[in-house]
Every structure is written in structure tokens, then in C-alpha cells.
């Protein structure tokens, strides 16, 4: 392992606490990933990235910052990365997925806040995540109430820009989001000192479309009866996609997809024939939150798709590449982003349609709808998700969990029973 201590020091991190965090990660990675048989070789890239998750990429970001580039940290798949890239900025995801950060978040937030928000705030205030230190500006968004109010607190500690996400999807809302994107573009221009041009934005749009297509190729391979990759590995790839350089991400995902497609041709599967195929839906699974996938896949089933922001919501739908003025491009971006179906919107029947479509596409035997504790939006939507699936005759299990391990056995019983139920 390379020595990143000086870098962490320079970032003003709390090294002592950070050591504690770093000491648990290898065991978790070992237990969740290295115990798997017959993994795709191309996973070596993600194994390396995760083994030095606080080293490799942060060091790259710092190098870029030295050249004058600005790093923007985001918390939601609604924030259009293209705009930042077109102004020669860099985007990194900032969602916290570890219980380690939750107490730090609880020091300033109500306990009844979802763990994703608590962990994100805790990671910043506790100074134990390099990404949260490196980001020059945070970009928030008015999605759920918990995040909106948490951004006010984060904003006291770091430059914060908040985009106003509409709550409905009428034509005027799409127009409104376009205007928000235009306003964000102005802010990005100011902050980076670089002017946006239609050419540069078009390049960025193409770059991100390529990344989306590469991610989609991996997901496409998961539709095969012969399952070439585990849900855990696919999830890791997805989670890292939020942090990585987009061009390299596309390249690595395409390399993985090549191998997966070859595996399908050769009939190489990571699970025995007849293993039950699970679609997971609900709130995002931020790194290093692998609890749900790990329990499902050690209970005799396989995860074949995530209808989540760390999943299909991140890459489905492309941005129209044919527009030639910034104004048209902002509209094209808005149209693409507003297709993402998040429970923050009302109505959100598009998500139900997506789930039903994916059940068919991914040949799913059962759906697990899991939300983070205190996420009232996704929790409430479980009612309509479960009703629609029952009507369609698809077995559905609704769960709620947080980042602690205390409910692992309870989840194991429910998930085990669900798998036994669909096994008949």
C-alpha cells in the first residue's frame, strides 16, 4: 500500500479516527468480496480501487487541483455532471455509506434522520473522508427534507450550492429544471473561471453518454440466464462509478462487459443453474454499504439488478447529443435527468413501471424493496410498489434497515424465508 499519510495530514484529516475507519475496511472487503468463487478477472480494477479507496483517487484529484481544476462534490443523481466537466471541473460523489460516520452526524442532526444523510454530515464534520475534504464546492439539491436542511449545516463549513429540484414532472417543471441547470452552469463558470461553450458541453454530454452505455452493457449482461457476475461485484462497480474519472470508468466497464459477454458465450455462471434472481429496489447503497447484497447472496439467491440511484437510475436514458446551442443543450439535459424516477417526486408511477419492466428484462423471481430507516419517501412508496408487484404476481419483500449490523440476523431470517418461499 502506498503511503498517503502525508496527503491525509495536508487535507487536515483526523488521522487517529481515520485509522480506526481504515482498519475495518479490509475485513469487510475480504468477507464480502474475496470469499466469492469464480469472479470476473476484470474486477481486479475495482478490488484495487476499493483497497485504497482513500488513497488512489484522492491523490489524483489533488494532482488535478494543483493544475487549477476545481472539484465539485455531489449527493444526488439529479446534479448534471456534464456542466461541470464542460467547464473543466471534476465531479465526485459524496454519499456516506458507513455506520462509522453516523454518530458524528447525530451530533448535529436529529436521530430520526436517514443514515445516508447522517453519515455524509459526519464524514465532513469528523474530517475522516478525503473526498469530503478535497471537494472545493458541494452541490446539494432540494430533494428530500432531510438533505435540504442538512445542506444548511454543511454550508457553514464548506462552499455550498443548492439546486432547486422540482417535485413534479409537468412540462413547466422540465422547463424549470432547465433553468436551474443554466443557473448552475453560470455558478460553475464563475467558480472555475472557465467559460462554457456548446462544443465543450457537447463533448461532456458525449463523454457521459459513453459512461452510461458502458454501465448499461454490464447490466445487460446481468439479464442473461447464465449469470456472469454477482450482485456484489456489480454493486461495487456501480458505487465506484460515482468517484472515478468518467472516461476511465467507461473504459473499465467496457472491459468488464467484454469479459461478461464472453462468459455468457462460454456458459460461465457465478451461481448454480436455478438460483433465484432478485431485483433490489429502494434507496441508494453508498460505499461501503454492502450489507443487503451480502445477505441475499449468502442466503442462496443472486442479485441481478438494482433499481436504485446506485443502479439503473444512474445510467438509464441518454442525453440528446444533436443540440448545438447551450440553451438547447440545457433543455436536452433537463429532459434526460427528469426521466429519473425518484420517490421525491409526486406522482412517481414511472418508478413502478420501471420495476415491472425490469422484472421482465432481468428475468426476476422476486423483488426486495429496501429503504433506509427514516426515509419517509421510499418507505411510503413501498405500499404502491408492493401492491403493483402483487397484482403482477411477483413475490415482493419490503425491508427497512440502517448502517448498523445489529439487524443482520433479522434480515437474514426474512431474506432466507423469502428465498425459501420463492424456491417453493
Amino acid at each position: 500500500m502506498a503511503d498517503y499519510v502525508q496527503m491525509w495530514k495536508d487535507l487536515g484529516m483526523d488521522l487517529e479516527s481515520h485509522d480506526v475507519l481504515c482498519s475495518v475496511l479490509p475485513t469487510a472487503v475480504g468477507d464480502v468480496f474475496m470469499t466469492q468463487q469464480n469472479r470476473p478477472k476484470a474486477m481486479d480494477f475495482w478490488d484495487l480501487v476499493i483497497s485504497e479507496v482513500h488513497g488512489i483517487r484522492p491523490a489524483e484529484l489533488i494532482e488535478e487541483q494543483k493544475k487549477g481544476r476545481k472539484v465539485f462534490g455531489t449527493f444526488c443523481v439529479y446534479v448534471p455532471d456534464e456542466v461541470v466537466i464542460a467547464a473543466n471541473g471534476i465531479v465526485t460523489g459524496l454519499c456516506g455509506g458507513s455506520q462509522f460516520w453516523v454518530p458524528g452526524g447525530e451530533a448535529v442532526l436529529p436521530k430520526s434522520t436517514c443514515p445516508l444523510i447522517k453519515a455524509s454530515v459526519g464524514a465532513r464534520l469528523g474530517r475522516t473522508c478525503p473526498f469530503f475534504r478535497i471537494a472545493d464546492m458541494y452541490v446539494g439539491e432540494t430533494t428530500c427534507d432531510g438533505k435540504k436542511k442538512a445542506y444548511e449545516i454543511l454550508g457553514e463549513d464548506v462552499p455550498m450550492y443548492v439546486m432547486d429540484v422540482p417535485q413534479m414532472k409537468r412540462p413547466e417543471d422540465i422547463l424549470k429544471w432547465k433553468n436551474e441547470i443554466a443557473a448552475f452552469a453560470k455558478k460553475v463558470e464563475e467558480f472555475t473561471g472557465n467559460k462554457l461553450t456548446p462544443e465543450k458541453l457537447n463533448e461532456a454530454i458525449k463523454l457521459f453518454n459513453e459512461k452510461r452505455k458502458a454501465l448499461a452493457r454490464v447490466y445487460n449482461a446481468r439479464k442473461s440466464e447464465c449469470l456472469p457476475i454477482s450482485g456484489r461485484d456489480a454493486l461495487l462497480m456501480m458505487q465506484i462509478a460515482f468517484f472515478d474519472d468518467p472516461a476511465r470508468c467507461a473504459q473499465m466497464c467496457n472491459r468488464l462487459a467484454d469479459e461478461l459477454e464472453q462468459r455468457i458465450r462460454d456458459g460461465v455462471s457465478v451461481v448454480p443453474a436455478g438460483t433465484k434472481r432478485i431485483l433490489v429496489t429502494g434507496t441508494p447503497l453508498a460505499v461501503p454499504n454492502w450489507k443487503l447484497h451480502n445477505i441475499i447472496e449468502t442466503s442462496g439467491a443472486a442479485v441481478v439488478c438494482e433499481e436504485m440511484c446506485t443502479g439503473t437510475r444512474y445510467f438509464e436514458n441518454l442525453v440528446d447529443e444533436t443540440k448545438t446551442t447551450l440553451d438547447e443543450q440545457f433543455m436536452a439535459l433537463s429532459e434526460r435527468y427528469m426521466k429519473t424516477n425518484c420517490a421525491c417526486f409526486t406522482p412517481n408511477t414511472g418508478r413502478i413501471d420501471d420495476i415491472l419492466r425490469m422484472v421482465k428484462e432481468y428475468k426476476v423471481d422476486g423483488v426486495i424493496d429496501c429503504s433506509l430507516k427514516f426515509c419517509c419517501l421510499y418507505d411510503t412508496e413501498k405500499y404502491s410498489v408492493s401492491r403493483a408487484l402483487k397484482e403482477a404476481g411477483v413475490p415482493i419483500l419490503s425491508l427497512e434497515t440502517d448502517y448498523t449490523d445489529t439487524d443482520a440476523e433479522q434480515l437474514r431470517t426474512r431474506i432466507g424465508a423469502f428465498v425459501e418461499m420463492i424456491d417453493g
Partner: protein
Amino acid sequence: MKQYSIGIDIGSTCAKAVVLDAEKHIMERFLLPTGWSSVETAEKLKEQLSAYLSDAFTVATGYGRACVPFADRSVTEITCHGKGAAFLYSAPTLTVIDIGGQDTKIILLENGTVSDFLMNDKCSAGTGRFLEVMANTLGLRLETLCELASAGGGVSISSMCTVFAESEVISLIGRGEPRENIAFAVVDSIVTKVASQVSRLLQADGAVCLTGGLCELPYLRQALEKKLGRKVVTSSDGRYAGAIGAALLAWKDGAAK
């Protein structure tokens, strides 16, 4: 081909064991308190089952199912309770209510197989634990609490949380409320909680049965019937439902060998 099958259900308060013969007759049934260690309990069960063990397939279930080294495999309590309940009460559509020490399970069975289930184990409200805590607070045994409850009325406990409910009970005692009425309120509280869970799975037709240790309390069953507006059946073997289901699955395993 082996002669017997054994089902072991290690719950949070009690471990149950059932031995079936080839005709699926119950040869043996017994229970032990689980105590502190599931591993020790499993050892004790092993001793008591020694006459059958070598000639039986064994399936373990319950929350301590992973701690039974001599079992051939483990199956979750949902599947086992479902199978066991279908054995005890045959009905094309059956809703099973199992109020356990630590959790409450609602299982929907269609033609003997599980088609849906719900589990409450995140908090002790609506579980046997709630009743136990309240009985302790009142200085009563569970059976006496239920008997008293049948003669009470007029009081209710508003808090769903065991800890808050306990302080409510204490203030009711302090206020001089007759014990019958407090006991009534306690049972009413758990029955209300369980009924609201059941309503999520309850089918318009079909039978409802109560299994688990609490099915031996007649007043609880009656109170549940009243709340649900449905007949609720029980069986003297109700608390063995999980172990019976495990033993039935063990037979299937044996036959497949």
C-alpha cells in the same frame, strides 16, 4: 431410509423438539428453556434425542438455528411455522399468527405453502416479551394476567413502546386502578398491535390460527378473535408448530436422499 425425522426449533425463550415417524405421527415432543446459550441448549436437546438421532434426518429452525451442529440443515422459522401450521390446521387459505417471545410472525399460507409473510422483531411491542414485562410489573404470572384481564375493562394503554407502556402501567397501579382493568389494558394493547399487523395480510376468506407459546392462553385467543372479527383456532400442539414443520421438511430431505 431412516426411521424418524427430528425438528428442532430454538426460539428466544424456549427450544422445542419433535420426533416424527414414517407415518408422520408425533413420537416425542418436549421443550427446554433456551437460557443464555443456544449452543448449550442444543447440547441438551442432543442428549434427550440420543435414542433417535442416528436413525433420523434433522432440521433446525428458529433464531438459534445456526447453533445446532447435529442438524442436517437449517430452515427459517417462517417456512417451518408455515409447514407446521398447515399440518395442524388444514385449510386452503390460512393466516398463521405466531406470537413468539422476541418476534411476532404473520404467515399467509395458500394450499399449504407460504405465499406471503410479515415479521415484527424490531421492537418488543406486540410480542410475548411485552406481555412478560407487563406481567412482571404487575407481579403476576402470564396465565393469571390473562385470567384477570377477562374480568376487566374500561382502561387502555396508549403507548406502543414497551418501555413507555411499562411506565403507564406503573402510573395506573399508582392511581389505584384495579388489577383486572390494567390486565385488560395490557392484553388489549398487544392484541391491537398484532391485529393491525395481521390486517396487512388477512384474506377476506380462509381460516386464522394462532400458534406459539401464547396460544395456550384462552383469553388472548378470544381477545384476538374479537379484535379481528374472525374465528381464531388453536391446537394443543400449537407451540410446536415450528418444530413440527422442521421435522416434516426433514422427512422430505430424507426421502430425497
